[in-house]
């Protein structure tokens, strides 16, 4: 952009037919103009070439209707700068920031590269009916004196120069306003505590900058198949969501078409909005366009601006709306990335806390009970869950075994498991009546579990050595297994519902002799393990292994290793989908 404008300026403006011969004639005229304006021969050669390239593109890519319209060329020479504007009637294109050369053996595709290489500034303003390529190049001999003012027409020249200066000042002022607005926008976005009111205010700003009557910003929603209004210059207007499927027909929303076609979609009286287009409810929608906001290949929104009148936006206004929209898109994308980053950090922290709670849940060591040996196992899945096991000596010298599984993952599951553990430890006086104990737990956890829409499956087993029997109650949990020395597996299924679902639920107990001298209590992660083929381990495999352990008289730690190996060998490295916990008990005096 020129830092100062010489008061003396020479201008040339012509419209010529859309054909290559006329481009050549225009180039010859511009040569003569620049020669008269005092440019040196090499500068004139360069301008002839870049105007030929620009004019050829305007001819070669004109639309069928556009080829019937003239191409306009405006050329200006001041003491320091030369400038040319070529107004075309093509479909327009995204002018690259830096044009690339085609392969060496290509016979075309070098025009834009030449234009960029031979000028100092290039700007392509896209509009509905026309586009304008603006080329500027600093003059090589900028210290040349201005053209002599002839006394006879000095007043006229001064008037023209003043007019030119006014036009350029107006343009500079417009650019300054837009830039200043965008800078303010950028600064505010990062400090905005309320994004909705922030966007709303900026819709208003856009109206005043571009002389629009309305504008609407939509953002993708859910899985990205729908666009919803995020801000509108009309505060009372909340348009219906638009679906992105089947957005190719002209009957569909212009916003949806812009998003799916990755291109601006225009509307005016010649191609009006479809009656079903939500924008039609804005009232008179004479002309305008929907501009999709893409960051790399990610669609982050659609900005639509319109006028009530049929007068289309000027190329400069279109450029501002597009620039503003693209800038807005980048800011929205950055904010989304930042929020995603924060969410990830929170989730990571959440998982760390959950893992700490999970570690605190499990007993550091299982209690030493005469005549009994115990071994526990816990393995977490990729996400922390709420599996839990414990063994509590009771006041009457017996033992309560507990296994539980909180539905869900992460921090909530770990916290409910912790609550469950605290309640169990607080009322171990109920240990000898496991069914009643579960009913009490259900009563005390029901409200919280219900509010969180979670539940817990659990199993309590009271080992009564005096009576040589075991009393088991379950709440929606896998069966209790015991095995005797002959390898016979007994399966105890007790049928209460999971905790947290049924108010006042009852949990029947089953009592059996402790003839099975080895017991296994476990969560569903043990038999629902899957291998790389997606096959399930299954309860039969668990029972079969327990039978072998029983008949072989394996001690607890060996049985624990057996099931750990069973999981490892079966899964063959398949990702672990669920937590696994189990506890093994063996009667030493019966082995």
């Amino acid at each position, binding site marked *: 952009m020129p830092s100062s404008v010489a008061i003396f300026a020479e201008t040339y403006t012509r419209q010529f037919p859309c054909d*290559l*011969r006329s*481009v*050549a004639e225009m*180039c010859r005229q511009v040569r003569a103009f620049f020669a008269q304006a005092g440019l040196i021969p*090499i500068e004139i*050669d*360069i301008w*002839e*070439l870049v105007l*030929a*390239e620009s004019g*050829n593109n305007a001819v070669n890519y004109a639309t069928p209707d556009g080829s019937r319209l003239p191409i306009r060329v405006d050329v200006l020479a001041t003491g320091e700068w030369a400038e040319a504007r070529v107004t075309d009637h093509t479909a327009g294109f995204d002018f690259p920031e830096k044009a690339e*050369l085609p392969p*060496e*053996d*290509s*016979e*075309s595709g*070098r*025009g834009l*590269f*030449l234009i960029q*290489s*031979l000028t100092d500034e290039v700007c392509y303003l896209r509009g509905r009916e026309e586009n304008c390529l603006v080329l500027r190049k600093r003059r090589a001999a900028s210290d040349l004196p201005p053209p002599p003012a002839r006394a006879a027409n000095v007043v006229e020249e001064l008037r023209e120069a003043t007019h030119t200066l006014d036009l350029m000042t107006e343009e500079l002022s417009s650019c300054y306003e837009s830039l200043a607005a965008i800078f303010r926008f950028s600064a505010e976005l990062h400090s905005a505590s309320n994004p909705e009111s922030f966007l709303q205010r900026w819709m208003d700003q856009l109206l005043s900058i571009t002389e629009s009557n309305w504008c609407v910003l939509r953002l993708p929603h859910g899985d990205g198949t729908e666009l919803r209004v995020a801000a509108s210059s009309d505060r009372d207007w909340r348009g219906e969501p638009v679906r992105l499927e089947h957005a190719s027909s002209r009957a569909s929303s212009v916003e949806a078409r812009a998003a799916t076609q990755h291109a601006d979609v225009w509307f005016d009286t010649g191609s009006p909005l479809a009656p079903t287009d939500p924008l039609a409810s804005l009232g008179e929608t004479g002309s305008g366009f929907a501009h999709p906001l893409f960051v790399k290949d990610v669609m982050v929104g659609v900005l639509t601006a319109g006028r009530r009148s049929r007068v289309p936006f000027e190329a400069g206004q279109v450029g501002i709306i597009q620039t503003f929209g693209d800038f807005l898109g980048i800011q929205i994308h950055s904010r989304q990335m930042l929020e995603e980053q924060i969410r990830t950090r929170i989730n990571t922290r959440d998982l760390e806390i959950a893992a700490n709670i999970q570690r605190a849940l499990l007993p550091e060591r299982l209690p030493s009970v005469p005549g009994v040996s115990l071994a526990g196992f816990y393995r977490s899945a990729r996400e922390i869950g709420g599996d839990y096991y414990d063994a509590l000596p009771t006041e009457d010298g017996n033992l309560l075994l507990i296994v539980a599984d909180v539905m869900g993952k992460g921090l909530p599951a770990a916290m409910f498991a912790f609550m469950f553990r605290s309640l169990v430890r607080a009322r171990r006086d109920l240990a000898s009546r496991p069914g009643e104990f579960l009913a009490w737990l259900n009563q005390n956890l029901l409200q919280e579990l219900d509010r969180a829409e979670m539940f817990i499956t659990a199993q309590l087993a009271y080992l009564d050595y005096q009576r040589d029997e075991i009393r088991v109650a379950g709440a929606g949990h896998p069966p209790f297994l015991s095995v005797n020395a002959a390898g016979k597996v007994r399966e105890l299924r007790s049928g209460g519902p999971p905790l947290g679902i049924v108010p006042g639920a009852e949990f029947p107990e089953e009592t059996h002799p402790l003839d099975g001298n080895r017991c296994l209590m476990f969560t569903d992660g043990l038999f629902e393990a899957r291998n790389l083929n997606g096959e399930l381990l299954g309860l039969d495999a668990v029972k079969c292994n327990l039978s072998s352990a029983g008949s072989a008289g394996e001690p607890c730690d060996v049985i624990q290793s057996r099931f750990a190996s069973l999981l490892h060998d079966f899964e063959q490295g398949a990702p672990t989908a669920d937590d696994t916990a189990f506890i093994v008990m063996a009667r030493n005096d019966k082995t």
Partner: protein
Amino acid sequence: MRTYDRGDTLLITEIPTLTSETYKPFKEYAHGSLLPQHKVVEVDLSCARSVDSDGIGALISVHKAVCAQGGQVRLLQPAPLVAELFKILKLDHLFEIIPR
């Protein structure tokens, strides 16, 4: 345009412009004049007032045809800007350029 057949060299001369308006006739003329024995094609650009990207494309077309029969294209006395264009477009190694 005029051509001179000098054994293994074909000289094309009297080229007033090589632009979007004129590149097609030049290309057809050059290809039509090229014979299998030509190992060098000299394009005399001393009279060419202007050359644009279409004109350069036509020269590349001739270059490919001559290369296919093991030869090369020599550009004679192009204007300074035209010679510079080949450097800007990184095509100066494809052609032997004889300056003014």
